[in-house]
């Protein structure tokens, strides 16, 4: 759509700007403040320059959390995106079952995040949970509170359970929007199912897939509540992702300086990667 230049449009955006500025700029400045100051308690602060940033960037602990975070986000993207796409492709396009499918699939998305954590906590308990008991009965030595590998497995499975539906719904929306003519043309040309997918469906889904990857990337990089409730970052620190580590530093130890520096590094990483995704998406749209 060709838009007209109108500077007065700013007036319409102003309320949003004020709200978000109150919520984003003031707290962000607080974090910036902490990150460059040394505190001795009693609200006495002194300038400390980039000391905290150096400390955070060089600390083994931060690198380990960041590494775990990247591994987690990569794992769930690799599982959820193809799985979501496959399920969307297999779903019926019309008929009474569509609504039923959509409602049931969307259900996990509407569950408060700590309830998701508690739910999986009791579901996977080795003694009394359906999944934990089941796996042990099948001969696996499964105990997510003791073994790091099992904890990872449970968390990844929980995230797949929680969020694959988002990918399904996005892809489904994209698929229904493809006009029927495309399929008819493909049928006349005698195209195989794979060719239909590769040359009609996949290109048409590019947009929604970008949104799905962007949303899943951002949200999985910020994961806190579910994991905190499920494993508390343990056993040991095997599932301590960035947000959990940040919380331990900020509220557990009350090290505001390092926590501030860490917050900013963390935020900048998300911002940078999201900007890359966003630019890609907007370029697609411009075409």
């Amino acid at each position, binding site marked *: 759509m060709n838009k007209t230049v109108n500077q007065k449009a700013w007036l319409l955006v102003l309320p949003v700007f004020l709200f978000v500025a109150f*919520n984003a700029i003031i707290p962000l400045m607080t974090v910036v403040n902490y990150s460059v100051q040394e505190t001795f308690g009693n609200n006495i602060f002194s300038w400390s320059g980039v000391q905290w940033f150096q400390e955070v960037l060089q600390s083994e602990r931060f690198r380990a959390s960041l590494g775990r975070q990247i591994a987690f986000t990569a794992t769930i993207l690799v599982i959820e995106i193809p799985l979501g796409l496959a399920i969307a492709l297999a779903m019926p396009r019309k008929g009474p079952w569509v609504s039923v499918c959509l409602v049931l699939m969307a259900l996990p998305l509407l*569950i408060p995040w700590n309830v998701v954590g508690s739910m999986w906590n009791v579901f996977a308990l080795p*003694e009394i949970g359906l999944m934990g008991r089941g796996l042990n009965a099948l001969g696996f030595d499964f105990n997510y509170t003791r073994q790091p590998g099992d904890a990872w497995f449970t968390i990844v499975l929980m995230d797949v359970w929680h969020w694959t539906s988002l990918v399904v719904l996005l892809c489904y*929306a994209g698929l229904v929007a493809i006009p029927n003519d495309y399929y008819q043309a493909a049928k006349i040309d005698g195209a195989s199912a794979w060719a239909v997918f590769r040359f009609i469906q996949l290109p048409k889904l590019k947009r929604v897939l970008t949104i799905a990857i962007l949303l899943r990337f951002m949200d999985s990089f910020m994961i806190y509540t579910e994991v905190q409730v499920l494993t508390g970052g343990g056993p040991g620190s095997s599932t301590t992702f960035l947000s959990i580590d940040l919380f331990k530093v900020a509220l557990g130890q009350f090290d505001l300086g390092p926590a501030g520096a860490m917050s900013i590094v963390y935020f900048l990483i*998300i911002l940078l990667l999201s900007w890359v995704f966003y630019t890609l998406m907007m370029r697609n749209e411009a075409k």
Partner: protein
Amino acid sequence: MRKRSIVPILYIVFLMLPIYWLVTMSFKTTNEILGGFTPWPQNFTLDSYRKIFTDSTWYMGYVASIEYVVLNTIVSVAVALPAAYAFSRYRFLGDKHMFFWLLTNRMAPAAVFALPFYQLYSAVGLFDTPWAVALSHTLFNIPLAVWILEGFMSGVPKELDETAYVDGYSFPRFFVKIFIPTIAAGIGVACFFCFMFSWVEMLLAKTLTAVAAKPIAALMTKTASTSGYELGLLAAAGTLTLIPGAVVIYFVRNYIAKGFALGRV
């Protein structure tokens, strides 16, 4: 029934298993839960639910949750409507930067904001009120609402606006009388998403409340710590938090797919 419908069916079964386990547990006694493995309740009991509906600290948690979620939805969508219109219709100084800046707030990890928010909302005297949670959730819900509404509004041809102005409509009158009814579906979807993200977010909701406005889902952590390990109660409270979500999905079921694509398919 074609062969490939097995995939969605299996997926839905997988989705329902943990939910089934939670719901069954809510009907068991704590003894039965801890005593061993039973696939369904042996001594069916409603005690857990009875306790929640008679103890005011429990049911008020529900009221508090609904209160801030509704406040948040109204504020977010009301503020986002004019802004989304501006982004979809006009070009103005810094529009693209503004739009991306808004989106960055959707990307901000709540863990980064928890402590500053606590200080900010204590300073303005809103700590432990539904307003604190409602306003803090606008951080990610306003950008989301703007994004969704902009998508839906861009689908409405510009001729609609121009015809209305030619017919002598002023901007506010056009907006309320003609434009809002035209994008009613989009507004419904935006409301759904604001409701959803405010309802599921717990980190900020928990940090910004103490007693009076504690959300129901945050109360669940309390049971685990103060009164031993009352799993039945925990499961009942958890089961009850599923209901509002299910009700809301039912209402938007026909738009849900398009909504998740942010109105731009």
